[in-house]
C-alpha cells in the first residue's frame, strides 16, 4: 500500500487509464483516460447521463470499476480504498446535510468518521466552519439554512478530514445565482489557501469556462476532449464557446441526453428542504 517514486501516477492527483463501469448492458463509463494535476481545478463536463456521476463514484471508491486503473495520489482505488478515501473530500449532487442536526453537529459527524483525534475535533470543526463562512450560524439546525448555505456546510463536512482532493458532483445544481457565486468563491479560496486539488462535475458550460483551470468533456461514457477552456475554444474559432467545443468533439447538441434520475433527485431535494 505504500507509495514509492516509481508509481506512474505519483505526480498526479488522479490518474485513470481505461476506466470502465457497466450497468447491465449499458456502459456508463466506457474506457476513460483522465489525469488531474495536483493543485488544479478540473471540470468534468457533459450533459446529464454522460457518465460523470458514475465516473466520480468509481473514483471515490463507492463503486468498483469493471476494468482499468484508478490511482488517487498514487494509491489504487481498488486495492486500497480506505487509503484513497482518507485523501478525498466528497460532496454529492444532492443537498446532503442532515436537517435535524446543527451545522456544527453535521461537521462533527464527519470529523469522527475520519478519525480526527478527539482533542483536535472541536478546533478543526470550528476552523472549517469559519473557512466556509458559517461560524455565526453553526449552532442553528441545518434545516434552517438556505441552499447555498447547505452547500457550504457540505464543503465544511468534506474539508474537516483535511483531504488533498476535493470531489464536487454538480455543486451548483439547484442553487440561485447568489448561492452559486458563494460556492465558487469558496472553492477558489480553498484551492489557494489550502493547496487543494479540485475535481468538479457540472453541466453548466459557462461556470466551467469561468472557474476551471482545465476541462474534460465527457459524452456517452468517454472523454472527448481535455484542455484549458481558452485553448479548446481557440482551436475551434475566435468566437467559439465551450458548447461549440462540445458539439465539435461529440457531434451532438449539448442538450441531448438527459437522465430522468437526475431530475427526480433534484425534485426530491427541493421537496425535502421545503
Amino acid at each position: 500500500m505504500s507509495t514509492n517514486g516509481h508509481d506512474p501516477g505519483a505526480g498526479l492527483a488522479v490518474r485513470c487509464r481505461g476506466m470502465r463501469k457497466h450497468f447491465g448492458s449499458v456502459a456508463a463509463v466506457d474506457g476513460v483516460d483522465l489525469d488531474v494535476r495536483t493543485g488544479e481545478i478540473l471540470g468534468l463536463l457533459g450533459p446529464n447521463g454522460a457518465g460523470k456521476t458514475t465516473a466520480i463514484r468509481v473514483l471515490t471508491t463507492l463503486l468498483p470499476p469493471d476494468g482499468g486503473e484508478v490511482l488517487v495520489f498514487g494509491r489504487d482505488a481498488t486495492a486500497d480504498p480506505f487509503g484513497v478515501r482518507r485523501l478525498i473530500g466528497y460532496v454529492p449532487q444532492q443537498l446532503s446535510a442532515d436537517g435535524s442536526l446543527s451545522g456544527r453537529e453535521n461537521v462533527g459527524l464527519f470529523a469522527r468518521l475520519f478519525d480526527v483525534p478527539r482533542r483536535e475535533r472541536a478546533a478543526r470543526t470550528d476552523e472549517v466552519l469559519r473557512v466556509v463562512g458559517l461560524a455565526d450560524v453553526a449552532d442553528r439546525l441545518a434545516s434552517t439554512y438556505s441552499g447555498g448555505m447547505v452547500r457550504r456546510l457540505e464543503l465544511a463536512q468534506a474539508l474537516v478530514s483535511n483531504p488533498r482532493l476535493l470531489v464536487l458532483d454538480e455543486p451548483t445544481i439547484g442553487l440561485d445565482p447568489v448561492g452559486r457565486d458563494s460556492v465558487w468563491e469558496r472553492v477558489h479560496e480553498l484551492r489557494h489557501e489550502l493547496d487543494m486539488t479540485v475535481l468538479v462535475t457540472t453541466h453548466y458550460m459557462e461556470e466551467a469556462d469561468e472557474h476551471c483551470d482545465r476541462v474534460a468533456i465527457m459524452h456517452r461514457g468517454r472523454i472527448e476532449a481535455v484542455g484549458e477552456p481558452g485553448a479548446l475554444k481557440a482551436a475551434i474559432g475566435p468566437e467559439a464557446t465551450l458548447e461549440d467545443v462540445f458539439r465539435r468533439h461529440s457531434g451532438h447538441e449539448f442538450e441531448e441526453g438527459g437522465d430522468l434520475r437526475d431530475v427526480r433527485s433534484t425534485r426530491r431535494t427541493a421537496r425535502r428542504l421545503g
Partner: protein
Amino acid sequence: MSAPLVARPAGSVDPRTSAPGALRWFASRIVTFCVVELQKLRHDRTELATRAIQPALWLLIFGKTFSELRAVETEGLPYLDYLAPGVLAQSTLFVAVFYGIQVIWERDAGVLAKLLVTPTPPSAVVAGKGFAAGVRALVQVVVVVVLAALLGVHLELAPWRLVAAAVVSIVGAAFFATLSMTIAGLVLSRERVMGIGQAITMPLFFASNALYPTDAMPAWIRWFGTVNPLSYEVDALRGLLVGTDAHLWLDFAVVGGSLVAGVAVAAAVLPRLVR
C-alpha cells in the same frame, strides 16, 4: 491559513492493522452513530413523548381489559405484570422496524454515499445505525418501567437487572433495525419497506410470547414463536424485570447472535442502495 489545516494525513493510517485496534475502531464508529442519534433526540423531544403513547395505551387498555378477563394462563402472575415486559419488547421492535426507511431517505439525499466514502465499512454503518435504534429503545425502557411501576406492576428493580434489561432491549432493537435495513437493501424503495415492515411486525409480535405464552398457540405458530428472536427478548425481560423463570443465557445468546447475523446480512445488501 492556520496550522491545523496544513497537517496532511500521514500515509496509510489504518487502525485496523491489529485485532484490538480494529475492535476499538469499529466500536468508535458505533459510538459516533449513537452520538448523532442523541443529538437528534435533543433537538426533537416530541419524539420521546409520542413514542411513549403506544406502550402506555397497550398497558392501560389491553392490559387492564385482559386483567379483568383472566383469559391468559400467566404462570401465576397478575396479567399486567406478565404483559409489561412484552410491551417493552414490542416498543423496541416498533422503534426499529422502520429504520430501513431512514436509510432509503439517506440514499435519496446522498447521505449514504457520503457515509460510504468515509473510511467506514458497510458493516460499521449498519451496526452503528442499529445501535442508534438501540439508543431510542433505551428511552422506551425508561418509559415502560416507569409506566409499569405507576400501574402497580411488581417490578424487580435491582440495578443489575435494570442494566441487563437495558442491554437486551438495545441489542433487540439493533437486531430489528438490521432486519429493516436488510429489507431496505433488497427492495430499495420507501413504500415497499413500509409495506413489508408492517407485514412482518404483526407476526413477529403476535407469534411471540409477548402477550400470552407460546403454549397457547397451535403447533405451527408455536414453532414460529420458538424461532422468533422477539420471544427470547421477552423471556429475558420478563425474567429480569418481574422475576419469572427465564433462560437468560440462552436468551442473550439468541438475541446477540441474531444481531451479529443481522449486521452481516444487512452489510452485504447495503451497498446495493448506492449503485
